């Protein structure tokens, strides 16, 4: 059976419904959990997130993919309880990045010299989160991760970013989960590194491609290479990203160019932020904002369905990996 790894276990892929594919439910800047002025009230966080997930479900949403990775506030018991209570499937991720967000364990280990981790060690760390289950640090493992995520330093790839990309790619190849990458200033170069590791292009999603500093040529090159693009700031109203009108035009252009199967949409919202600015955009911004815009611009219903249901389903469906 074709299944997806959710926090509550495997779910048949055709039951995901409409998917918000690149979101952060609880996002904690590493270290903020120790800060004197940061309060982590789990009951309050639950209530806030449950409301957002319920609104999403009421807007027709079925599944939320949490791409915070393993070291940015991921709280598995909380995500499990949210999924059980709201009926929304939650797919959680392993992985981390960019370099600046890593702990010293990976960057200045207790060896002489303190050599940063190479790709194979990251691959083993992330891979265990898929094969043995996601870690509740020093306590236990829970359900297998549904995807592996990493990110590259915005101003340019560091050596450790490259190790992270390769480690994430090897994880995807070995375990059959997809890999999502937030690129730096060279999205195509970042993608090439992932593909060099032998992961199929269709298993790779490149996020953040609705940034203003990303040329349309780059977006086209990513899809022509066979990877998916995630336009993951739907509803954003800032200087850094396209407007929804511009985003809709980009989607229409990609569809017209024959790439409807390579486009993913998301809000990139943060449900609850700790140590970071809040982000009040609703998870349903794709379904309630962009999709109506696409429809009124002439996008047909099968293509809408493809973008919000079929593409995420195909990406998240776990393929037999080398370890299977």
């Amino acid at each position, binding site marked *: 059976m074709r299944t997806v790894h959710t926090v509550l276990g495997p779910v048949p892929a055709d039951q995901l419904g409409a998917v918000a594919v690149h979101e952060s439910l609880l996002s904690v*800047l*590493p*270290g*903020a959990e*120790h*800060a*004197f*002025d*940061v309060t982590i009230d789990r009951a309050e966080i639950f209530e806030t997130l449950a409301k957002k997930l319920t609104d999403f479900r009421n807007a027709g949403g079925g599944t939320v993919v949490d791409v915070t990775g*393993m*070291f940015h506030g991921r709280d598995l018991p909380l995500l499990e309880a949210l999924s059980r209570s709201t009926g929304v499937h939650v797919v959680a991720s392993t992985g981390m990045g960019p370099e*600046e*967000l*890593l*702990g*010293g*364990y*990976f*960057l*200045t*280990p*207790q*060896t*002489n*010299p*303190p050599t940063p981790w190479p790709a194979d060690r990251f691959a083993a*760390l992330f891979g*265990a989160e898929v094969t*043995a289950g996601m*870690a509740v*640090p*020093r*306590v236990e*493992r829970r359900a297998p991760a549904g995807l592996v995520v990493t990110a590259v330093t915005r101003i340019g790839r560091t050596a450790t970013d490259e190790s992270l990309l390769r480690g994430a790619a090897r994880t995807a190849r070995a375990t059959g989960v997809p890999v999502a990458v937030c690129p730096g200033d060279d999205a195509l170069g970042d993608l090439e590194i992932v593909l060099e590791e032998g992961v199929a292009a269709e298993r790779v999603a490149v996020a953040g491609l609705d940034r203003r500093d990303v040329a349309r040529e780059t977006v086209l090159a990513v899809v022509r290479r066979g990877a998916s693009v995630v336009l993951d700031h739907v509803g954003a109203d800032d200087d850094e990203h396209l407007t929804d009108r511009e985003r809709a035009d980009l989607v229409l252009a990609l569809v017209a160019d024959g790439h409807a199967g390579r486009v993913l949409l998301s809000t990139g919202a943060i449900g609850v932020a700790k*140590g970071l600015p809040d982000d009040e955009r609703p998870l349903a911004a794709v379904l309630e904002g962009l999709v109506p815009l696409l429809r009124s611009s002439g996008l047909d219903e099968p293509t809408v369905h493809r973008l919000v249901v079929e593409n995420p389903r195909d990406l998240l469906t776990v393929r037999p990996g080398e370890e299977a």
Partner: protein
Amino acid sequence: MSRVNTVLGAIPAAELGVVAVHEHIGYGMPGSELDSTWWKIPEERYAETVPKLREFHEHGGGTFVDVTGICNGRDVDHYRSLSAKTGVHIVACTGFVGGDTALPHFARATVEYLARHFVHEITVGIGGTGARAGVIKVGVSRGGRMTALDRRIYRAAARAAVQTGVPILTHLAIDPEPAVAIFGEEGLPLDRVLFGHADDGPNSSITPHEWLLARGGRIGFDTFGYETELPDPPFWARPRKERLDHFLSLLERGHLGQLLVSADANCSPLGWPGVKGHTVNYLFTDLIPDLRDAGVDDAVITTLLVDNPADFLSIRS
């Protein structure tokens, strides 16, 4: 009134007894908690830790200063339970082992924010534990030179030390000129600073002890027991006799009042294998006998292990 913050509340300095001034219940680099290689079930952690603390207590040990930084697996609730069950006073720290162990929330922070955080942990408490930090930890990042972040942490620590009266312990005392300059600028007398790891293998020869002592700093011979004679010594190990002779030479030159000793051992390491056979009890089983064999009298040993740490740890008003 003399007082020292322990994890179970303030105590008078007279109650500290013999102090191990630079130790770890369990240390791991930030992020090591994600790697199940190192996980231990709670039974195992207690089984590794409690007998060492009980032995410490039976040897006459009074106080265990844990200098595991904020993001290194510092676990104050665990320390509270250990202290209550073994009778060993445990002092916890605020601060960081070095800039390279401060996670992004703190790495991005200003000096003012870091100082507020340290002061909060010293005067209000650490997280929701109710326990107040008794010392501030700072340190030099890997690489041997103080980074910009290390310096922000040192300056914030100096401000918190001036404001609250708790002392500072450093991880490493190499490249100390910027540190001494920062402490001077912030008005912190150097007898409130223990310049640590002045005795380890790679760093002892590049740590300017005399320069620091002349300015009133305290010097930590706080890696006693990390010896090249161990079956599997770490890279910071040093020949046993070389460290001891080095220490005795400082005593002979009259620096007793500025010296502190400890073992920097892990009771139950969190993110590394630890060093087999090395515990805080080295102080009793090896160091004290070695000092006696070298002709050091008991009054000097008491000064090193009781009086100096009491003076150092007492909150200065």
